[in-house]
C-alpha cells in the first residue's frame, strides 16, 4: 500500500525586487512579473510504501526542510501533487506551543489539542505520556522551571503519544541525555515494527544505514540519487567531496557491488591490490596475518601536492580503519603528468571474519573535502577468514589471553 505519493513536486519562492514591487504586482495584474523565482525544490517524484523507512540526505540548502515541510503540510507546494494516506506526525520542532507559565500537564493537553486530539483522548493518553517523559512530580510545575532536557522529553512524549502512520524525524532532534536518546529511538523502532512509515533526515551514516531501507539524496532542489541505503550514502559522500553531480560515476564492479567514483580526476587510481606477506595478490586473507595494500595511481594533471588515503569498511558501510600518507608522514609533492605512483600500506589484518571493502581517496590535503582528486568507494572487496586462530565474534581481533583461578571459600 502506498502511503505517500509525490509527483512532480516543486516549490518556488518569489523574491521581489522591493516591497513596492509586490504591491505593484498585486494592484496591476497585467504588468510584467517583478520578482525572481527561486526553486527550492523541483521535479521531485517519490513513492513510499507502507512500513518503509526512507532516509533523506543532502547538504544545507538542498531542499530537505522544504520537502519535509511540504510533507508535514505546513507549506504548500507550487507545482505537483502530494497524496497522503494516513496521519502524519513530524518531530521537527519539539516543544512548539508550550507556554512557560503553565504546568507540564496543562501544556501536554494544549499540545495534544494542537495535534488534533480531543481532550478525552489526551486524558487517556496522559498517564502513558507522563511515564515516558520520566519527569515525575515536575508534571505539576510550570514548564519554565524545567531543564531543557526535561522539556524535550515531555515534548517528545506528547508528539509520539499515538502511533502515526507516517513519522518524520529530523536528526537535529536531540532528546536529552543518551539514555533518553536510546529510549526515544527504541520507541521509533517499535513504531516501525508496528507498521509506521519512517522518514529520517540525517547526516549520520550509521543512523541512516541501520534504520533506512532506501535513501533519497537531494542536491540543489532535485533528487539526484535514490536507492539502497549504502549505495545512496556512498553517492552522498562523493557528492560532499565533489559538489557536482556530473563528476560522480556509479558502476557495478565485478563483485556485483556498486562502486562510486567522484572527484576532479587530477590523479586517478589505476589498480588496488591486496597482497599477502609473500607478495601474492589475494581476495581473502586470514585474520591476524601481515598484508600489504598496494594502490597504483596515475597523474593526469600536474599537481603541487597530494595525499593518498584508504579506508576499510564492513558490509554495513561502517568504517573499520582509515589512514593516509599525510598522517603517516609521507609528503607527495610536485607531481607531473604521466607519473605513476605506487603506494604500499603494510599492516596486520586484525579484523574479524566477514566481507570488507576498500575506499581509496586522493586529495590535496588531509581532508578530502578540499580539492578532491579522486574518491572511490568499493574499489576492492575482500574477505577475512579465520581458519587458523581461535574463532571469535565481532570485527576486531583483540587477541585476548585468558588466565583462570578458582578460589575456594575460606573455611
Amino acid at each position, binding site marked *: 500500500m502506498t502511503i505517500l505519493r509525490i509527483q512532480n513536486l516543486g516549490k518556488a519562492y518569489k523574491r521581489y525586487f522591493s516591497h513596492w514591487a509586490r504591491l505593484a504586482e498585486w494592484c496591476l495584474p497585467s504588468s510584467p512579473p517583478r520578482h525572481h523565482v527561486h526553486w527550492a525544490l523541483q521535479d521531485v517524484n517519490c513513492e513510499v510504501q507502507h512500513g518503509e523507512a526512507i532516509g533523506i540526505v543532502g547538504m544545507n540548502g538542498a531542499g530537505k526542510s522544504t520537502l519535509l515541510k511540504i510533507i508535514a*503540510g*505546513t*507549506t*504548500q507546494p507550487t507545482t505537483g501533487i502530494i497524496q497522503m494516506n494516513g496521519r502524519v506526525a513530524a518531530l521537527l520542532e519539539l516543544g*512548539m*506551543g508550550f507556554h512557560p507559565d503553565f504546568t507540564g500537564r*496543562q501544556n501536554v*493537553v494544549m499540545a495534544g*489539542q*494542537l495535534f488534533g486530539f480531543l481532550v478525552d483522548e489526551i486524558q487517556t493518553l496522559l498517564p502513558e505520556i507522563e511515564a515516558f517523559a520520566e519527569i515525575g512530580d515536575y508534571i505539576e510545575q510550570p514548564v519554565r522551571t524545567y531543564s531543557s532536557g526535561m522539556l524535550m522529553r515531555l515534548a517528545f512524549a506528547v508528539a509520539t503519544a499515538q502511533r502515526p502512520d507516517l513519522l518524520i524525524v529530523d536528526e537535529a532532534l536531540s532528546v536529552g541525555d543518551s539514555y533518553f536518546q536510546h529510549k526515544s529511538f527504541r520507541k521509533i523502532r517499535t513504531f516501525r515494527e508496528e507498521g509506521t512509515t519512517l522518514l529520517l533526515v540525517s547526516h549520520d551514516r550509521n543512523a541512516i544505514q541501520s534504520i533506512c531501507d532506501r535513501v533519497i539524496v537531494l542536491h540543489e532542489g532535485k533528487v539526484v540519487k535514490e536507492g539502497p541505503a549504502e549505495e545512496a550514502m556512498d553517492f552522498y559522500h562523493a557528492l560532499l567531496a565533489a559538489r557536482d553531480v556530473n563528476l560522480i560515476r556509479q558502476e557495478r564492479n565485478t563483485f556485483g557491488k556498486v562502486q562510486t567514483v567522484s572527484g576532479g580526476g587530477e590523479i586517478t587510481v589505476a589498480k588496488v591490490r591486496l597482497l599477502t606477506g609473500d607478495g601474492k595478490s589475494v581476495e581473502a586473507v586470514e585474520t591476524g596475518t601481515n598484508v600489504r595494500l598496494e594502490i597504483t595511481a596515475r597523474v593526469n594533471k600536474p599537481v603541487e601536492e597530494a595525499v593518498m588515503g584508504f579506508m576499510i569498511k564492513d558490509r554495513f558501510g561502517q568504517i573499520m580503519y582509515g589512514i593516509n600518507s599525510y598522517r603517516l608522514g609521507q609528503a607527495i609533492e610536485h607531481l607531473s603528468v604521466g607519473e605513476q605512483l605506487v603506494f604500499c600500506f603494510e599492516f596486520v589484518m586484525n579484523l574479524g571474519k566477514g566481507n570488507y571493502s576498500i575506499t581509496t581517496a586522493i586529495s590535496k590535503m588531509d581532508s578530502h573535502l578540499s580539492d578532491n582528486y579522486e574518491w572511490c568507494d568499493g574499489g576492492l572487496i575482500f574477505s577475512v577468514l579465520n581458519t587458523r586462530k581461535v574463532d571469535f565474534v565481532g570485527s576486531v581481533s583483540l587477541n585476548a589471553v585468558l588466565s583462570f583461578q578458582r578460589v575456594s571459600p575460606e573455611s
Partner: protein
Amino acid sequence: MVNAQLKAIWSYRGFIWGSVQREFQSRYRNSLLGSFWAILTPLATILIYTIIFSRLMQVRLPGMNDTLAYSIYLCAGILTWGLFAEIIGRCQTVFLDNANMIKKLTFPRICLPVIVVLNAGVNFLIIFGLFLSFLVLVGKFPGWVILALTPILIVQIALAIGLGVFLGIMNVFFRDVGQFVGIVLQFWFWFTPIVYPASVLPEYIQPWFRLNPMVSVVAAYQSILLYGQWPQWSTLVPATLIAISVCLLAIALYWRRAGEMVDEI
C-alpha cells in the same frame, strides 16, 4: 471552502478553547489582583473621560442633564468600541505573532483569528456584564430593549473580523499595515461620536458621518442603553452591507494568499 473551514474549526475546538482559557489565565496569572485588572483598565478610561468631558468641559447631552447620563452614554460607546478595536488590533498581528507555530505545525490557520475573537469576546462580556449590573443598581436598566444589542453586536463583530483578518493577511506581506492601522483606529475613534454627542459637531460634517459605518452602530447602542429606545433598524443597513462585503473580501484574500503567507512570515 467556507464549509471546510468551519469543519476545521469544529475539529480543533479543543485547541481553540484551550488557547482562549490559557490566554485569559496567562494575562492575569502572575499578578496579585488577577482578573481585577481586566475591569480596572476600562474603568479608569471611563472615569477620566467622565471627569474631563462632563465635569470640566461641561459637555451636556441633548435632553439629559446629569453626569450619570453622560457616563452611560460614554460606556455604551467606549465599551463596544473597545471590543471592535481589540478584534481589529489583535487580528492584524495574529499571523505574525504566531509565526513560529504557523511555520512549524500543521493546523487550520483560521483557528488563530477565532481565538482572538473569542478572547476579545470574553473580555467584553466581563466588562459589559459589570456595566449592565451597574445599570440595574442605579435603576437605569433599559429593559427588554436590551435584546436589540445582539444583532448590532453581530454586525459590529463581523465588521471587525472582516477588517482584522484582511489587515492581518496584508500585514504579513506589507509590514507598514500594522503601523498604519494604529493611527487610523485613533482617528476613527474620534471621528465617531463616542465621547461627545453628534450634535456638538458643525452641520457640514454630518454628511461625512454617513460614510462611517461605526456611527450608526454606536448610535444604536447609545439609543438602547441610554434612552431605552429600539434602534432605527434602517440606519444599520449600510453598516451591515459593509460588514458583509468586508468579510467576503477577507475570505477571498485568505483563499488566495493563505498558502503564500507561510513563506513570508
